[in-house]
């Protein structure tokens, strides 16, 4: 009897570390150059799974550049060169044999300005699953679209006008539509580049509430200029300055007792 109990316990402890403790995204010695400009300098960062990580820093500090490395959006810029290593689930995403389209399905992105396709609300969300062949039938597709709209907290507001254009929605609704579009292909990581900077406080609160729910299933990395937003939504915060990752840590520590003077100066509004 005793030995049985012991076996169960050891199984349990063996199983737990895989879930929460292993980082989802690992960046090692990542450098980015735009032509001659060295935009990101030897960045090392572990991003925990199923949590919100905030990237903060003044304009031009490299935080968006770093974000765009994670789904290889920088590939689209001809003069951009990335060195170092980024792994998602221990798989190198800069491996030449890796399918970038597949990668971008696994790593969704939401931009500063809501950018719905000039198509119906339904089509906006259905587009991804269709091109990736996720839905076998119309019923499947309906399910994915409705489920994604629900998860994005938008379904109740748009259920009677799914055929209307996505661009007819308000700014906040458009942004949630973009989030629904991103999660429709069931990504593992969602990158958000200042997703609320074009939204009013209520729409912002809705997106933040949504992030709180989404982090149960997704790994979220958000770039934000609002320190308060980083403090509200994230579990960990990374501070970038002049291309360097200056400091990274638990959000509560970063905003109450940062270790680096530059972090302190930035978050308290002392940068000249």
């Amino acid at each position, binding site marked *: 009897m005793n030995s049985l109990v012991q076996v169960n316990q050891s199984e349990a402890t063996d199983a737990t570390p895989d879930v929460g403790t292993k980082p989802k995204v690992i960046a090692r010695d990542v450098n980015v150059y735009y032509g001659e400009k060295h935009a990101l300098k030897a960045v090392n960062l572990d991003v925990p799974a199923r949590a919100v990580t905030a990237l903060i820093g003044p304009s031009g500090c490299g935080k968006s550049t770093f974000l765009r490395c994670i789904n290889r959006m920088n590939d689209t810029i001809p003069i951009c060169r990335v060195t170092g290593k980024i792994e998602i689930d221990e798989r190198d995403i800069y491996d030449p044999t890796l399918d970038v389209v597949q990668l971008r399905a696994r790593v969704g992105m939401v931009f500063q300005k809501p950018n719905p396709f000039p198509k119906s609300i339904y089509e906006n969300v259905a587009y991804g699953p269709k091109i990736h062949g996720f839905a076998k039938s119309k019923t499947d597709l309906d399910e994915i679209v409705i489920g994604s709209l629900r998860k994005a907290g938008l379904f109740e507001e748009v259920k009677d006008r799914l055929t209307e254009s996505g661009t007819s929605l308000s700014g906040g609704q458009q942004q949630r539509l973009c989030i629904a579009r991103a999660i429709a292909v069931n990504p593992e990581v969602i990158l958000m580049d200042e997703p609320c900077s074009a939204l009013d406080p209520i729409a912002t609160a809705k997106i933040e509430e949504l992030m709180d729910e989404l982090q149960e299933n997704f790994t979220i990395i958000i770039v934000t200029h609002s320190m308060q937003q980083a403090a509200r939504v994230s579990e960990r915060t990374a501070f970038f300055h002049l291309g360097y990752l200056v400091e990274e840590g638990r959000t509560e520590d970063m*905003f*109450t*007792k940062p270790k680096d003077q530059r972090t*302190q*100066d930035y978050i*308290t*509004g002392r*940068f*000249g």
Partner: protein
Amino acid sequence: MNEQHTAKAFDADLQDLARMVAEMGGLAEKQVADSVDALAKRDTNLAQRVTAADSAIDALQREIEEKAVLTIARRQPMAVDLRDVVGALRIANDVERIGDLAKNIAKRVIALNAEFPPPKLIRGVEHMTDLVLEQMKAVLDAYAHRDDSKAMAVWRGDEEIDAVCTSVFRELLTYMMEDPRNITFCIHLMFCAKNIERMGDHATNIAETVHYIIDGNPITERRPKGDTTTFAALTGAGQ
């Protein structure tokens, strides 16, 4: 000190808070000194003035609270600024309590009226007061100059006050046992001594807050304590 904020008005807000706390501390120091002075010199007039002056300290505390709340609402302070604002609130609280304790001593002076203890007994209380005033001055300096080592020295230095308090208790117990007519003023004096001992505790609280403002972490080590009055009463009763 940190360099200035991009928004200069934020610096002004924080400086105002620190100035009000310092002013409040100065008032409280005076109240403590005056209340014990009134006790030693049997000066009921001075005691009355101390009782009346406490409201100024209370008013400053309310002002500090309002200013702190407004600063949080307006500036959303972070990190050291946030600790600064929260620290000002906490220190104001402790100083306000010190003011109350001084007022309580003054009230006892008025209550004692003509019945005054022998000066020898008051000397112990005066000695405690000197120690507490030193602690208060040091901790307010530590706050004004953000001097962590000075704050820590205050935090560790409370032991002596506790020890003197214990010996005053013993002495008073002996007096009370000698002659029941001594009981009234001895009880009052005991409360005065306890009040001063409590002031010392508030000074160490302030030292903890100063450390927190500077360092960001609470003090984790255990504070040395010398207050054994509970035992003094027990042994006294058993004799």
